[in-house]
């Protein structure tokens, strides 16, 4: 029997699911090996149980967390798709602001005054906190990146189908850069988070002339102290450094500390 696979989305842009659908030819081969039972981007069916649940998006409200727990209880394996589910992504930066400040910044004072008096709406907003999936339920595998890398998704599914251990890169983006023979971002006179960020992305951003902002997350063995010193030496002050670390990593150790 083919394994049953399901996709669920929470708060995110659904770009990860689109990246997967973009595999097209390979995706059709994949359908020979697995049964997709839930996938809002592609079909309308549902199923009581599945072998693998892919989760996209970050978890904001308590009702979202409840829905996630319920999915977890119905699935043998749970895999996060991308930086929103894995790290909380850029939206997790709102956790550093009070809900009222956050709302005022986006919608203005007048609108804030209006909704704060609305008992239907305000409690919902006031109790919102952006969480990654692993802050709510146990996660078996993480597919990293913003968005995910299609080849990594296919590799993981193939491994799960035949029961081998998937190869998950635990090396820095620098390894990818060297394999692509890219000029180092620091040699361009800029700074980069590649040395402390999970690789596996083929260093696409750097290959296209940008830098690494760390969307794949902080490596567990990262020498953060030395990296921070390097950024200081390159002229970044403490608040700029924290901004860089927090862009994708505000829910992680590198972004969590208080702004000086």
């Amino acid at each position, binding site marked *: 029997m083919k394994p049953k696979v399901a996709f669920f989305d929470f708060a995110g842009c659904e770009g990860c699911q689109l990246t997967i659908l973009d595999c097209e030819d390979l995706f059709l081969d994949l359908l020979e090996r697995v049964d997709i039972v839930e996938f809002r981007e592609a079909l309308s069916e549902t199923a009581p149980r599945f072998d693998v649940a892919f989760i996209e998006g970050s978890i904001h409200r308590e009702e979202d967390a409840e829905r996630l727990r319920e999915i977890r209880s119905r699935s043998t394996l749970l895999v996060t798709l991308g930086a929103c589910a894995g790290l909380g992504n850029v939206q997790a930066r709102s956790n550093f602001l009070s809900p009222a400040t956050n709302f005022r910044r986006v919608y203005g004072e007048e609108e804030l005054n209006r909704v704060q008096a609305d008992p239907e709406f305000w409690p919902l907003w006031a109790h919102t906190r952006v969480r990654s999936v692993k802050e709510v339920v146990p996660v078996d595998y993480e597919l990293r990146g913003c968005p995910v890398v299609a080849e990594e998704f296919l590799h993981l599914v193939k491994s799960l*189908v035949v029961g081998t251990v998937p190869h998950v890169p635990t090396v*820095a983006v620098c*390894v990818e850069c060297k*394999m692509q*023979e*890219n*000029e180092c971002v620091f040699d*361009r006179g800029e700074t980069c988070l*590649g040395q402390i960020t999970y690789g596996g992305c083929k260093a696409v951003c750097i290959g296209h002339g940008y830098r690494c902002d760390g969307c794949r997350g902080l490596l567990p063995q990262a*020498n953060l102290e030395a990296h921070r010193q390097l950024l200081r030496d390159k002229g970044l002050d403490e608040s700029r450094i924290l901004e860089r670390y927090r862009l994708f990593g505000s829910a992680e150790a590198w972004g969590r500390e208080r702004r000086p």
Partner: protein
Amino acid sequence: MGAFLVRKAAVTEWIRSLAREQPLFFPQPVGRSGFRFQPLREGSEVRFDHYRPSVVPPGRQLTPAGEVLFRYRTGEGGVPGFESVLDASPRILAGVRPCDLRGIYLMDRVNREGRDDPHYLTRRANTAIIACDCLAPCDDFCFCETVGSLRWREGADLFLTSVDGDFLVEALTPLGESLLPGTGFARCEDVAGLRARAEEVRVRPFGRHFALSPERIAAILPGLWRSPVWENCGQRCLSCGSCNLVCPTCYCFDIQDDFDISDPSSGDRRRNWDGCLLPNFAEVAGGHNFRPQPSARQRHRVKRKFEYLVGRLAEGSFCVGCGRCGRQCTVGIDIFDIVSELVAVAEPPP
């Protein structure tokens, strides 16, 4: 073998004509200051006289990242069949510096030690090398002379030396001779005189120098296992592995199997570049890591280059002094500085 004195423009034209016949990899600028060995195309620049060492050394062309070693298929009755994948397409590496040439020579030895590596050796047998002498260090990171790479010629099929604006073109092998144009190159009678002329203008001393010979360095390293130098550079190390991946004499790899999604009974085995500075490099089954600290990994790298492989695979030093690792390290860890510090502690200057 023939030697010729050729005008620069004629050498450029000759290189371009070779590139029209087969893939010819030549260092070309990438970004602001990088270089990459890539196939020369119509309109690409041909400049021998000035380039910083490429991001990764030309020898990496012989072991490309992610190369397929063999394909497999499970046939009737579950019996697997294997088909080795060998790349015998001819190619030329041109503009190779003496340090990188010595790197390729050392890799030739590595891949012939014990069991031959057919993947490397097949590519190598079909690769012609046009090397080019260095008369000035490429930048402040260079230390090729002190480790014996500066005057290296072995492994090249053709060797070019700039002499007063022209090129002394020497064929060192029959393969090299076969790449020369039929006519048009004027034979040179006074090779020794021209080489002496190049030696005269060569910068002296060339690049950075250790206070001790490579042989002495290999002799003192065993006594420096507990030196504080390792911890000092371990504290700064980001464990990004760049130093390994840009090294002409790092050859460690990782193996991965992959199967075809359309037919899971068939697939391939690939090898990918790996490096001993990467945190999980020395992790074994069961999860034990023999070198969990960056300081232990730095020590291992230095000892591989200057002690462990000396005598077994290299005369003098397994480091070729190209300076890439120091140049690419964003936190400024430079193997030349590490060794110099160790030398200063073990044998302080009088």
